């Protein structure tokens, strides 16, 4: 039976969840400019007692851009990735990027709902002896934390609570929109990241920018667009009292971390440190903060972490 897309695996139902062993699709950015995301994910997995088996021969998901050149190529590339996961016996594929999540799920939806798409993909995969059976489900690490581990369980594992650190969630578009592809939680009013922040001992900050776009995908198309979108959103977070931001998307991380300095003229200084999702979870679960690569951020969180007795300033 093909996996259903409307409701991602219920806690404990997937074979992977029972074995605590998942297919892992890190995505390009976690392998290139945000290696700290890859490393902190592996450290977190170790702490959680789950195994993430990297799909090393996988390709880029298409990153929303490939559809601009050809409507089929991203879908078939993703079918190839799913065939690799199936061949490894890992139907439960975990991502750590909102854009990967959205585009891999969209490709899977098209493959599962349209026989001609599946036929086209398998005709090409057949040229090199691969076949996608339609059993893969793609989920974000955030969903794994909540569905397979559970927030209650996670909060019991907290050894370094966030001590009321005021954290603003920044979802990134493709983990929530379009709802017809993701559908794991309300796109207009998601609350998984806020629930997670509270479970880790932090205070979740509410602001309108949390479900808006960071501008990453148009940073090179015209001057000033991405910095303006970053500044607008970070201004809202700062004015709502945020001391830091958490995001499940490395593209958002790059834009938010990189462009706050370029948005000062219009939006004022915000200087909010931007945590990758696994960094903040791992920190609360007691992973050595000096191993989480937080000193690799442009706006380093050292001072904020020191103020809340979470880590000495020099390690981040």
């Amino acid at each position, binding site marked *: 039976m093909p996996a259903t897309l409307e409701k991602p695996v219920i806690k404990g139902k997937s074979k992977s969840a029972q074995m605590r062993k998942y297919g892992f699709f890190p995505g390009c950015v976690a392998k290139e400019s945000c290696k700290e995301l890859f490393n902190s994910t592996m450290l977190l997995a170790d702490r959680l007692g789950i195994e993430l088996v990297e799909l090393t021969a*996988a390709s880029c998901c298409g990153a929303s851009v490939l559809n601009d050149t050809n409507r089929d190529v991203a879908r078939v590339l993703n079918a190839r990735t799913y065939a690799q996961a199936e061949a490894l016996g890992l139907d439960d594929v975990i991502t750590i990027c909102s854009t990967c999540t959205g585009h891999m799920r969209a490709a899977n939806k098209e493959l599962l709902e349209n026989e001609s798409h599946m036929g086209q993909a398998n005709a090409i995969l057949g040229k090199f002896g691969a076949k996608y059976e339609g059993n893969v489900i793609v989920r974000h690490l955030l969903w794994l934390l909540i569905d397979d581990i559970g927030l209650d369980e996670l909060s019991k594992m907290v050894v370094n609570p966030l001590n009321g650190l005021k954290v603003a969630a920044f979802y990134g578009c493709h983990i929530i929109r379009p709802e017809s592809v993701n559908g794991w939680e309300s796109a207009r009013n998601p609350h998984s990241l806020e629930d997670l922040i509270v479970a880790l001992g932090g205070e979740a900050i509410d602001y309108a920018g949390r479900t808006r776009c960071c501008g990453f995908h148009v940073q090179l*198309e015209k001057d000033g667009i991405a910095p303006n979108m970053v500044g607008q959103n970070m201004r809202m977070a700062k004015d709502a009292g945020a001391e830091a931001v958490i995001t499940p998307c490395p593209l958002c991380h790059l834009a938010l971390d990189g462009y706050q300095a370029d948005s000062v003229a219009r939006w004022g200084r915000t200087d909010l440190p931007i945590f990758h999702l696994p960094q903040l979870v791992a920190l609360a679960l007691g992973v050595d903060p000096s191993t989480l690569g937080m000193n690799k951020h442009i706006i380093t969180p050292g001072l904020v972490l020191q103020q809340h007795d979470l880590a000495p300033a020099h390690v981040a």
Partner: protein
Amino acid sequence: MAYTLDIFRFDQGTDEVPHRDRVEITELPETATVLDALEHAKAEIDGSITFRRSCRSAICGSCSMNINGTTGLACKTPVRTVLRSDRSIAIDPMPNFQPMRDLVVHMDPFWDKYTRLKPYLQPKDKDEDHATERRVSPEDMKKLVAVANCVMCATCYALCPVVSVDPAFAGPAAIAYAFRFIEDVRDSKRKERAAQISDDYLWLCAHCYACSYCPKHVDPHDDIIAVKRATIEEGITDAAGPRHALVVAKTIKATGMLHETEVIQGTVGRFNIKGLIKVAPLGIRLALAGKLPPMFLKPVPKVDEIRTIFETLEAPTL
């Protein structure tokens, strides 16, 4: 049970700054729509409350407004679905527009972007007598059906984060209408239309899917990427947007990965010194943080399979 409308009030003729009025609704059930509640308020409580409305059934597209921070048609939004915990509903004019009076906004920028498209059929043969039908196969018409449902309510335009920082961007609805003519087999101006919409910053669409909240399910996003493909097919590729898409395809075909360093160089242009200087500050910040992306990437295992996929599908690259 009673609830409160918390309404944005402003008159461009007399007011320097807007204020808000709270109106108690006691006689209408929560199953009423937000538009019903507003009409009740206007008829029974304060006749000066101003808003656009006509059909009450999501066909005329007049009553789009901001309801509790998110935009949609008031006639299609039941009160009970949006009541906040304090039993109030905040009602504001559509964002990305200048308010005129209360919930009525100046729609001119939205219409301007639409009329620039020459939104009418420009067929090949001039049949002055209209003697023969221009027949279209059901198959060819099918892809235009969704966009034909657009009622020009401007909800997508109001929700668009790119419009909010750069009003030069055409916005989702106008690009969806460009799609409607670009993909119409009877039209003869495909290239001109593609060039026009490229000039109106087609490639500034940030792929955020905010327009997926379309109350008529037009979902302009798929139309936008179809128009982008049409511009590449028509050879309109000398701009950062199409170069970006094509260099991403090139690096994935070569290595299996989206190679960040090469994508930046390829999009800006390797010999575009001015452009490269503009992107340099972020590069320097990344370098100082010790996270500059690699200059060279080792191809993923079995990269030949990836090249086979690109070649079989004849997918374009830079």
